């Protein structure tokens, strides 16, 4: 299973040294692998080092130990390999929506006209039609996140990291965005690693879920989500979903787990 992984983490640990309390383990010996085209989520209590893990996979931070590989190649601490997206949309206010989405293509040296031509169909298809020449300030929160996601997806990388992308949205927009993300994922066939603290969200979207323990973040369990696709909101009431959710909750709030350093 692991050897077919598209992106893989091997024994990744990260230690922060603080002047007051010495060294603090943020994450401890994380092993995970996401196969081609799969949707995997990482879930855990706050302070479990999700963001640290995310930064390491994105190449923004060098882990203290362990390596990140893509197709078997060591890419630890290297940027430009996975596309990523944060809770903040990070759209540039001085660029139009279209030009924001084209940023990745432009940076790779594609002529702006060509990039715009390539991006336009996606804008209309994914609910941003008519807004291409507006500025981000004119968009609603959900639309901004959609634009940010398109920018990430149109960047030529088939691995995408999403760090709580819908965390700041209201419940209704959030569920719309989840449906939309599933549609997008089915269209683009990218390998997705999704970081969230919303259990429903993780179960609804993922093929597999990695449950992390509280600090130091360790993988407590890997849970397969055998819900059939395409999924609708009805799955929330299905027995499989409820069982899985209970199982995850037990894992998340299990205080008796051994705490070794």
């Amino acid at each position, binding site marked *: 299973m692991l050897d077919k992984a598209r992106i893989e983490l091997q024994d990744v640990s990260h230690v922060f040294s603080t002047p007051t309390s010495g060294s603090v383990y943020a994450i401890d010996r994380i092993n995970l692998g996401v196969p081609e085209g799969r949707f995997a989520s990482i879930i855990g209590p706050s302070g479990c080092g999700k963001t640290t893990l995310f930064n390491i996979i*994105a*190449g*923004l931070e060098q882990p203290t130990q362990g390596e990140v590989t893509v197709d078997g190649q060591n890419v630890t601490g290297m*940027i*430009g390999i*996975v*596309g*990523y997206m*944060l809770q*903040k949309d*990070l759209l*540039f*206010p*001085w660029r*139009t929506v279209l030009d924001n989405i084209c*940023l*990745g293509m432009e*940076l*790779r040296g594609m002529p702006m006209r060509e990039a715009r031509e390539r991006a336009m169909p996606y804008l209309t298809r994914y609910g941003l039609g008519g807004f291409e020449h507006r*500025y981000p*300030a*004119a968009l609603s929160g959900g639309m901004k996140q959609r634009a940010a996601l398109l*920018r990430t997806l149109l*960047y030529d990388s088939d691995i995408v990291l999403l760090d709580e992308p819908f965390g700041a949205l209201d419940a209704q927009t959030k569920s719309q965005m989840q449906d939309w993300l599933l549609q997008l994922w089915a269209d683009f066939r990218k390998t997705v690693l999704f970081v969230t603290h919303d259990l429903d969200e993780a179960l609804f979207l993922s093929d597999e879920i990695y449950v992390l323990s509280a600090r130091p973040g360790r993988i407590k369990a890997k849970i397969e989500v055998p819900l059939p696709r395409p999924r609708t909101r009805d799955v929330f009431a299905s027995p499989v979903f409820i069982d899985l959710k209970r199982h995850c909750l037990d894992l998340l709030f299990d205080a008796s787990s051994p705490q070794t350093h």
Partner: protein
Amino acid sequence: MSMTLWAPIGQFLGRNTDPAKPRLGRARRLYREKIWSPILPRLVQFGILAAIVAVWEIGVKVGFIDGFFWSYPSAIFKTGMIFVTQGDAFLDTWFTLKSTIIGFVIGTGAGSAIGLAFWWSQNWAGVFQPFLIVFHAIPKFALGPLVVLVFGIGLGSKVAMAVALTIVVSALATYSGVKAVDRDSENLMYSLGANRWQVFTKLVMPSALPWIISSLRVNIGLAMAGAIVGEFISSQHGLGRVIMYAGQTFDVALIWVGTIILSILAVAIYLVVGVVENTLLKGVLKR
């Protein structure tokens, strides 16, 4: 507890001491100022101005204001007319305006460039920042005589003074903007495969622009002050020279004329910069 203890005294003083009873005694209406019709403030302003001029003029005529030292409105008006119709009013104004604008453009441009350059290396920024701050702390007017010696009594020394006053303001403002560039956006650019030059031109420069713009208004005032001080020290033209010359010849009315023209000039430039600022800002922060 204490409430019941003090209750008799409160009752004696006629206060509402029953905790169950609503304290309507404290209720009051929020004070709101009634806003005048838009022309009224203008009329009042004009009235105040007219009153000052009238008191000044009459005060000198009656004799409780010394007209020799303070001069008086009618004399100032007369001198102003002569200065404009027969003197070098336009030449002097143009000279001051020219050195102000050239100094402003060079100072702001070079200052912004320095601030932006600091983005490239935190180490070198750390090395140069103290120099910048020390230079900022020097009273630049004290450098006036040196500047005139080095750059001569022509336009050069006035421009140099204006640059000296404005460059650090822009550099520090821009550097603040550079430091405020969003780390996540920077990381995002890199993760999308950007090189440093691309991050600089596509993220750092646009993000720092509002900070640069914020220094424009301060700088135009400083540039004018620099130009005038340059003229004070030694010059053949300019409103600063006119004022200096008037002071040396006890022509107090001419001092006022020079000051009034300078003020008008300052307000005019300020308005122009305001317009430039707004257009630039609109370009950056699209709404």
